[in-house]
């Protein structure tokens, strides 16, 4: 899984791209704990009909144009398993 920069409706956004065969938990949306203490939640994006998972990479409007550094937390489920895992990944996006 990784954090990518993109655009949506003309706005700069950040999105969490899941690895293959992975579903991202939508009931606890991914979070980026930014250096400096603020937390950015990636809450946007279409969900599955039961609202349990994101059906597309979750995203948020990019808060600034500068460097994005911190820790990204994601709760995810592999499609071949019936359980949830949580990871915290360092991110550094220029």
């Amino acid at each position, binding site marked *: 899984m990784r954090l990518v920069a993109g655009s949506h409706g003309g706005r700069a956004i950040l999105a969490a791209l899941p690895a293959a065969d992975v579903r991202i938990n939508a009931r*606890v949306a991914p979070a980026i704990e930014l250096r400096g203490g603020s937390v950015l939640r990636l809450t946007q994006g279409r969900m599955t009909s039961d609202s349990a*998972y994101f059906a597309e990479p979750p995203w948020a409007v990019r808060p600034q144009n500068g460097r994005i550094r911190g820790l990204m*937390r994601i*709760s995810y489920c592999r499609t071949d398993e*019936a*359980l*949830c895992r949580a990871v915290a990944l360092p991110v550094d996006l220029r």
Partner: protein
Amino acid sequence: MRAILSALVCIPLLGLSGPRPAPQWDNATWLNTDAPVRLDQLGGRVVLLNFWVFTCGNCTRTVPSLVEFDREYRPRGLTLIGIHTPEFPPYAGEHDKANVAQALERYDIAYPNAQDNDRRTWSRYGIRYWPSFVLIDKRGRIRYEGVGEFHVGDATHRKWERRIEALLAE
């Protein structure tokens, strides 16, 4: 000599030491009970621990099975305990007692639940995934462990049912 040494090394690996004692938990915040539930108060009862969090779909989809276990087996000697363990830091709301209480009501959960916000019980039991299950016998020993979602009537539900019944019969 080498064969004897190999055999000695292998003995513990074969599990001859038997079931290990279940670690005590000391969670301070509980729901669905007037006072904290302690393992040492449960001697003579079979205990099923469910490590879960309300934001985990795999966990909440398993709850109907657990509610059925509680209804069926509580009078026969099973104590089911939810260990509610957040995935994220407090900003996500999983630590809030009111949110946990709301989830218990939504999913019709009547058995005691501990808030394991510091993950101390989770760590003592070496848990890694949501949901996880630990079945403890009447003597306080861990007999079965498992992970993953299951549903009323499916093969995994029936497997846990057989395990619970076997321990109740001991």
